Structure formats: C-alpha cells, structure tokens
C-alpha cells in the first residue's frame, strides 16, 4: 500500500516490546489516543512515553496532567526509577498542571473555550523544544465541564495545535467498559486517527493485562491483544509473542543432549537453536534427563536451569544422587539455578524474570522443569503465551532449550489435549518418556516424535535408569498406545504368564 504508510514516519517510544507491535513506534508528529478503564496503566504508559524519550533518544517532553497533580506524578515516577525533578531542572521535562484544585468549584456562565490551556501547552513546548507530549487525561479534564459540544470542538483544536508544532501527542482517556463502547465522551475515537486500548480483565480468576492497537491510520501494525506487565526493573513491558524477524536464520551446529543414546535418536545431537519439548509423567526421568542436558555443555557452555517443581536445595540433592555436583557447576559459573514457585508470580512476571536471567547470565542452554507446574496456576492460553514469548527470546539468542512437561490433560483434571498439540507445534524436537505396563512390572520407554530439519529414530526404545544415569536400550517392538498415555504391550499374555517369551504375533489369540 502506498500513501500514508510511505509518508508518515514512526517515533519509537522506547517502551519495551511496544515498538515491535507498533511496527516501529507511534506515527510521528500525530496524535494517538490511549484508552483504558481505571487502573489499566494509562498514566504509567504516558509517563514512560516521555521518560524513554529522554533516556533513549534525548528528546524533551511536555506532560499535561489533569488526573493527578504534578507532585504526585513526580513521586510515582521515582518508584519507576525516573527522576522527573532532575529532568525538569535540566529542561527535558515540563509539566502543564491542569489538575483540579481541591475544594474549588468551577462555575460557568456563558460560552468558553480552552484557549488558555492550549496557550500553556504551546508555551511549554516552545520552552523546551518538546518532541513528545503526554496528555493525561482528556476525560478527567473535561469531566469538570458539561458541554459535550465544546469538549469535542476543543479536542479538535488541541489536536490541531499540537500537530502544527510537529509534536507526537499521546492523549489518554478513560473507557467505561473493557470491550463495549467507546471512550467517556464517545468523541475521542472519531477525532483521533490512532487508537490504542489497554485492558485489564479477569479471565478464569487471573488478571490479564493487554494492549491492542485498534487503528493506526492505515499504517501497518500488529493486530490483536498483546500481554503486558509492569516490571520493577523494565517498567511497562509488552510481552513479545513470536514476532517476525526472529526466525530468519537457523543453526546447523549440533550440540549434545547429555545422553549418547538420545543423541543418536535425534539424528546426532540437537541443533544449537532447538527448542526441545520432553513430556512424561511424574518420576519417569524428565529431571534426570534435564540435569544431564545441563551438564552436557561442559566445559565452556552455561546453563540456566529453571525449576518450578523443587527448591534449589532439593534439586542439588537429587542431582548429587545421580553423581552431578550442581554446587561445583555453579561455583564454576557454568550453571545458574532459578527456583520459583509457580504461584508467586503471573506467567508474564515469570517470563520477565527468566528474560532478565538470560540477559544477565548469558546461558547457551536453558532448562524449564516443568512447564506443567505453571499450568496448575494459569490458564492454558496464558501458558501458551508464556512459551511463545520465551521461545522468542531463546531463538533470538540461539539458545538450546529443554522444556519438560507432564502430558497435558494429566496435570489438570479435564485439561485439554489441544495444549499439547500447540506446544508441540512450537517445539522443534518432541520427545516422550512413558511408562509401559507389562504383566508383572513397569518399564520405561522413550520415543522421538519429531526433529525439525533432521532425521530421527522412529523406534520406541526401552529406557533403564540406574545410579549411573539413564540408558536407552533396544526397541520395544510390541508397545502400543504410548501416544495416548496408556502404553502397554499389545499381546495377550500367554498362559501361564511369561511376557518375555511371548510369540511375535501382536494380535494375540482369538
């Protein structure tokens, strides 16, 4: 498409993740409306829009505040790590305080306009050469006046005045409902070409905060709702969910899994940028596999091991029983164990914690053990979003990742099988570890379902675990129903029961 898309530049906001979904940033020199219900994060976004402009691009800004006083904004910004007071004395940030004086009723007699407010904003912009203007909020300033005709007219004037000064305006306004209807005065959406909606809804008893670009004057942008969170370290963060440009190259280098038999099954080791999904019921050997995977990159590789199942101490003790000294690995800076209970944070917060750990520790391998622990406390949709966001980070950095999960539908009664299918479609390699029932005992079996870009072993193989670790053995030719989770040998047991000497006839008797 030609036309506006070619002529309107973007102003990168500098807000984490937002410019990706906005395909570069806000339309430069244009007004954008940011609407949301009370507490949806509008003021925070408006403050960050100016703060990131100063910190990352050296662009001065003007903040028109009507909902809170300038003093309240300054105090709150400090807790976000922004020293607004210093920026004010440096001439980078100017307030236009339009907040109401408490106890001061305003009477109106006859007609009026907002010429003084516009003059003050223009004065502030000329004073510091502002490129960015945050106006928070339109609805609260105009809720003090009752004439909707004047409000609409004045909104058009304010927008036109700021446009003529070449500033990029972010105007916030309150919505009454998350999904129904428009903003408070139902005029904002018609006056402004660019509309962003923040939402804060309860979904299956969990808070879900999202940001959606509803319209962008025909400019390209990413559609739909995107999760965001407020992070103490990064501030307003839009969670990236598999954005384009992250899959444009693939690694041909192979790395070891930590188990020679498994290396053979996946076609000679894993591709360096592989995301491996290892599913299996509790106790079948997932954590053992993961620990050997973590150790396999020695001596130069580093592994971030995230456990949601065990404490740090429990993991160290379990590893020691398999002959792995995690304390020594951590002392050598080859391993970072991150243990967290799933309930302590939202999936978005877990994601950010892991992203921080990845950017600080710079691992070449990452283990998530187990994803299913998160499934107990979040919705299937949130879990999928978490995995997509995480894999985006992992792929960007070409990290080999092993994600373990119990077969979906077992962690939660009535859980959906669809989750497994979608997770498997994100993973490059899918490995199953299962119990196989035989008459009289239970064995373990392993199968590789897919390895993208590589051949692999199609057999279901026997697995044994002893104090030297996990050993992959011969194919189990008569095992069936592994995929459905109730693996069993298919032959009817001979009489008297002697499974190991059973005939090769898989269909058994009559």
């Amino acid at each position, binding site marked *: 498409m030609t036309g506006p898309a070619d002529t309107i530049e973007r102003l990168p906001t500098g807000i984490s993740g937002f410019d990706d979904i906005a395909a570069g940033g806000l339309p430069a020199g244009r007004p954008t409306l940011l609407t949301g219900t009370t507490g949806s994060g509008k003021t925070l976004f408006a403050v960050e829009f100016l703060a990131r402009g100063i910190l990352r691009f050296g662009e001065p800004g003007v903040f028109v505040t009507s909902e809170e006083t300038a003093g309240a904004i300054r105090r709150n910004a400090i807790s976000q790590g922004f020293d607004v007071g210093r920026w004010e004395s440096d001439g980078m940030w100017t307030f*236009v*305080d*339009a907040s109401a*004086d408490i106890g*001061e009723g*305003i*009477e*109106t*007699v*006859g*007609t*009026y*306009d*907002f*010429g*003084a*407010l*516009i*003059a*003050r904003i*223009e*004065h*502030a912009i000329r004073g510091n050469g502002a490129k960015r203007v945050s106006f928070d909020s339109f609805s609260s*300033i105009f809720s003090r*006046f009752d004439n909707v005709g004047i409000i609409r007219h004045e909104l058009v004037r304010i927008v036109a005045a700021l446009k003529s000064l070449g500033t990029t305006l972010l105007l916030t306004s309150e919505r009454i409902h998350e999904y129904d209807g428009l903003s408070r005065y139902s005029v904002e959406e018609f006056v402004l070409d660019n509309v962003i909606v923040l939402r804060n809804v309860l979904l299956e008893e969990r808070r879900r905060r999202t940001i959606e670009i509803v319209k962008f004057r025909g400019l390209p942008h990413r559609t739909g709702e995107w999760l965001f969170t407020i992070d103490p370290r990064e501030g307003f963060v839009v969670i990236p969910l598999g954005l384009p440009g992250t899959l444009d190259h693939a690694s041909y280098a192979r790395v070891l899994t930590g188990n020679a038999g498994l290396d053979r099954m996946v076609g000679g080791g894993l591709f360096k940028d592989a995301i491996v999904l290892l599913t299996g019921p509790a106790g079948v050997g997932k954590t053992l596999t993961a620990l050997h995977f973590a150790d396999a990159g020695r001596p130069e590789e580093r592994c971030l091991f995230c456990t949601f199942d065990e404490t740090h101490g429990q993991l160290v003790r379990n590893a020691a029983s398999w002959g792995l000294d995690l304390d020594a690995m951590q002392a050598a800076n080859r391993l970072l164990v991150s243990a967290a209970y799933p309930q302590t944070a939202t999936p978005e917060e877990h994601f950010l914690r892991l992203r921080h750990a990845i950017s600080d520790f710079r691992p070449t391998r990452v283990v998530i053990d187990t994803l299913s622990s998160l499934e107990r406390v979040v919705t299937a949709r949130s879990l999928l979003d978490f995995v997509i966001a995480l894999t985006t980070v992992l792929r960007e950095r070409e990290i080999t990742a092993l994600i373990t999960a119990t077969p979906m539908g077992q962690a939660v009664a009535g859980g959906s099988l669809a989750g497994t299918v979608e997770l498997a479609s994100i993973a490059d390699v899918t490995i199953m570890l299962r119990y196989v029932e035989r008459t009289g005992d239970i064995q373990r079996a392993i199968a590789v379902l897919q390895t993208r870009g590589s051949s692999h072993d199609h057999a279901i193989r026997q697995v044994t675990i002893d104090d030297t670790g996990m050993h992959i053995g011969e194919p189990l030719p008569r095992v069936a129903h592994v995929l459905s989770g109730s693996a069993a040998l298919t032959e009817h047991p001979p009489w008297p029961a002697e499974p190991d000497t059973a005939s090769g006839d898989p269909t058994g008797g009559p």
Partner: protein
Amino acid sequence: MTDYSFRLYVAGRTARSQAAVSNLRFLCESNLPSRYEIEVIDAIERPDLAEDARILATPTVVRIAPAPQLRVIGDLSDHGRAADILGLSDNGGLLSRRSP
C-alpha cells in the same frame, strides 16, 4: 476606594474575549461604581501568567479581592448569574436578583 479586584484571563482578541471584558465592566459599573479594578490578561501573550494561575478555560474571571477568591468561567453573558457567583448582587446594585 477600590475594594474589589478582578483578573480576567482571555485568549486572544476574539469576540468572546471582548464580550467577557465588556460584560465584566458592565457588572462592576452597575454594582460597584468606582470601587473596582480589572486587570485583563491575554493567555496567548502571557502563557506564563496563565500557567501560574493554572487557568484552563477562557474567559476566566478571578475575584482576587475581597477574599475568598472566586472563579467564573465563561463570557458572563448571563449577568444575573455572573453577579451572584462573583458576589456582586448583595451590594444593592441594579441587577440584584435577591431583592424581592
């Protein structure tokens, strides 16, 4: 003696600004002859003064004296209401609505 002091904020030399100035003058002349002073501030010429007083809408009249400070927004075209709000109608003026 001038015991009433008003500050009138307008934005530009528009018909609305002029209406506000003449309406305020008329109200004062009618109710407080030679007891008032009016200072007109154009927010476009002096946005800093509008900023100091945190004026949003124009025209805005601020009664500086006597205390308490009072504010009215609009061109004051309804003289009766304007006089009431600015506390002029108790002075026995022509426009007092409170006299029976």
